[in-house]
């Protein structure tokens, strides 16, 4: 079995996990949630195996490089980081409902990677610009950042949903962690993502300085990552200095994640140097 087959299977495993998490939340069946958790762990193992196999396979093809070099590989890695962070949160906070708002992103990323006709799942050799040790550091830090922001986005959605029902009457939202925890957890995820995004931008700048001769060129991807960084900076200042909590923070987290999505996908439709992320 080659890596793409395994990763296609993982897509469905994540889909199943997401479905089970949602089912366990909606129908209030904790056992289904336990099952979902195990399915997610299985998917994560499969995801890891797929990435490692792809890595090994690239060496067998004589073009060995870490599987972090194109859109397909980045989406696979994004799903991996997202599920990893989610599973850690699940262990720590023992709340399975969060899974219903986190794992669907992993499923969507994998499905997009596997099914989109624009994304090639072939192992491609590295073009000269990507042949650098900074590739691994840059991509890993950026994607940990993106994944943390994605989870923060899911948590913010949960928070906003919960606010629709202030008296806790609806049974649907009673299983959510309490508003305070949701808010605090969103903040923690944003802080984590912010640190990784900062390091990601910095490694990118150092890399750009050795590849293109300038650490900052206002390339669209750079600019959008900076915009994202500014949005989250605003959010952190609002929270830490002004004491913003709750709804306003949740909205900022949603805006921030929109910027992340644009940095990740939207930029490919703009002219610029970062074109390898596209296909």
């Amino acid at each position, binding site marked *: 079995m080659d890596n793409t087959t395994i990763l296609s299977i993982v897509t469905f495993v994540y889909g199943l996990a997401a479905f089970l998490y949602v089912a366990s939340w909606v129908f209030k069946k904790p056992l289904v949630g336990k099952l979902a958790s195990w399915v997610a762990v299985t998917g994560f193992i499969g995801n890891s195996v797929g990435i490692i196999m792809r890595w090994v396979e690239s060496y067998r093809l004589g073009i060995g490089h870490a599987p972090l070099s194109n859109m397909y590989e980045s989406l696979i890695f994004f799903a991996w980081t997202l599920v990893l962070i989610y599973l850690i949160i699940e262990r720590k906070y023992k709340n399975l409902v969060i899974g219903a708002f986190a794992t669907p992103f992993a499923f969507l990323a994998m499905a997009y990677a596997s099914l989109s006709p624009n994304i090639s799942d072939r192992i491609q050799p590295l*073009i000269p610009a990507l042949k650098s040790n900074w590739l691994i550091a840059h991509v890993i830090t950026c994607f940990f950042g993106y994944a943390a922001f994605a989870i923060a986005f899911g948590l913010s959605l949960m928070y906003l949903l919960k606010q629709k029902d202030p008296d806790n009457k609806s049974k649907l939202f009673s299983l959510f962690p309490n508003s305070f925890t949701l808010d605090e957890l969103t903040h923690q995820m944003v802080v984590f993502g912010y640190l990784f995004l900062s390091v990601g931008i910095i490694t990118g700048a150092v890399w750009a300085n050795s*590849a293109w*001769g*300038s650490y*900052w060129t206002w390339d*669209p991807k750079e*600019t959008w990552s900076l*915009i994202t960084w500014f949005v989250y900076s605003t959010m952190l*200042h609002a929270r830490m200095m002004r004491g913003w909590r709750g709804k306003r923070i949740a909205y900022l987290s949603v805006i921030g994640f929109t910027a992340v999505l644009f940095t990740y996908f939207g930029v490919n439709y703009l002219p610029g140097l970062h074109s390898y992320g596209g296909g």
Partner: protein
Amino acid sequence: MKLTVVLLLSIAVTSIIGTVIPQNENPAAYFREYGEFFYQLFSMLGIFDMYHSWWFQLLILCLTLNIVVCSIERLSTTWKIVFVNNPPFNISRFRKLSQKESFNSGHKLEDLRNTYEPFIARRFRYSRVERTDQGFCIFAEKGRWTRLGVYAIHLSVVILLIGGLIGSVFGFAGYVNIPEGEKVDTVRLRNVDTIEKLDFEISCEDFDVSFYPNGAPKEYRSSLTILEGGKPVYKKDIVVNDPLRYKGINIFQSSYGQMPSDAARKRKVQGKDTQNEILLNFTSKKTGTAYQVKTVVGKPIDIPEQIGQFVIVAYKKSALFGGQDIGEAYVGKLTPKDGNTVDILLPLHFPQFDKMRKGAVVISVAGQETETFRPDKKPDIWYYTGLQVTKDPGVWVVYTGFIVIIIGCYITFFMSHQRLCVDVNKSGKNSKVIVTGTANKNKLGMENKIKRMARQLEDLVKEG
């Protein structure tokens, strides 16, 4: 603070413009794209190079000033909090906290105090014991200095901007195309369209581009030599991601191209034989004598010993023989004294080639090196290498800013000023221990820490 948010967001929002409208393109292209009115408007606002426009730089400057002013204003307060000899401690504040962990112990106050005091002192940077009405309390804290983390981040923003400023004032970014085998000592600067003279010459000995089987580029490699006063002082092959650095100047592989084909041919043919003259060797099979005859393309010559007539009809960049590329060659026509005209192929790099024909005469092109031909590189394609040449003395300042920002973020977000209060009071025969604590950040984490601390303190005196 409000101003900070407004500035941050306005920089973020205006930055979007520059990612949607391509920057620094040809004015004519803009004119076509946007029409006269918008072209005028946009160029007046500097939208076509917006990140260097006065208003965008002004926004960045305002943000920096804002950060500096806010930081200084707040720093005086924080400074007083951070640098105290005796951290203030107010037990009533801790007693008011809603989150507290407590347990009862059968030990005497004295015993508890003797056990807990060193235990806590080991775990916290500062601790002290105070007497209370009905017992004692241990106050401990650590991470007071982490309150300064945020100033490190703000400082780093200033460092980054200073670094950027140094780069733009004392540095430059230019580009130059060097044909293989040639050298330059000037580069054309980007955006400003002026020429910068370098203190040395850059010579490009060779340029190679290689491809993967799927056609994607594998490597661009330029063999460069730095010459000072005409003497080579430094040699390096550069590829993308591995630039040459010499005396503060960085040379990057950035692009490449082929010289126009007639320029290439001219160089190749002329470079070796002036005025397109070709020197041919004729070796008679009968007598074994070798003759050298000069000719040019299209001029028929008589071969000595009355063997016949020969004319070169064409030059080929890459001739094919049996489907194999054998590189540069002349194509000629040989008309023997008594026979039909035959086509002759004279590969420049294989002088023995014509022997295979087993004719009355062996023809070859004189004065060719046989070593230079490699099938992977067609020698007649004359490349130029496109180099990015930069000088940026501010880079190290910027990198320092990067390090400070990472450390600052870590301190600010993952470390906190934690205060612990272990309040021990006499409660009948027993002692009641109440553990409370505060942190200026990550309050959830602190709650868990307090819980853990209470369990540890309880376990500590259980057996003993």
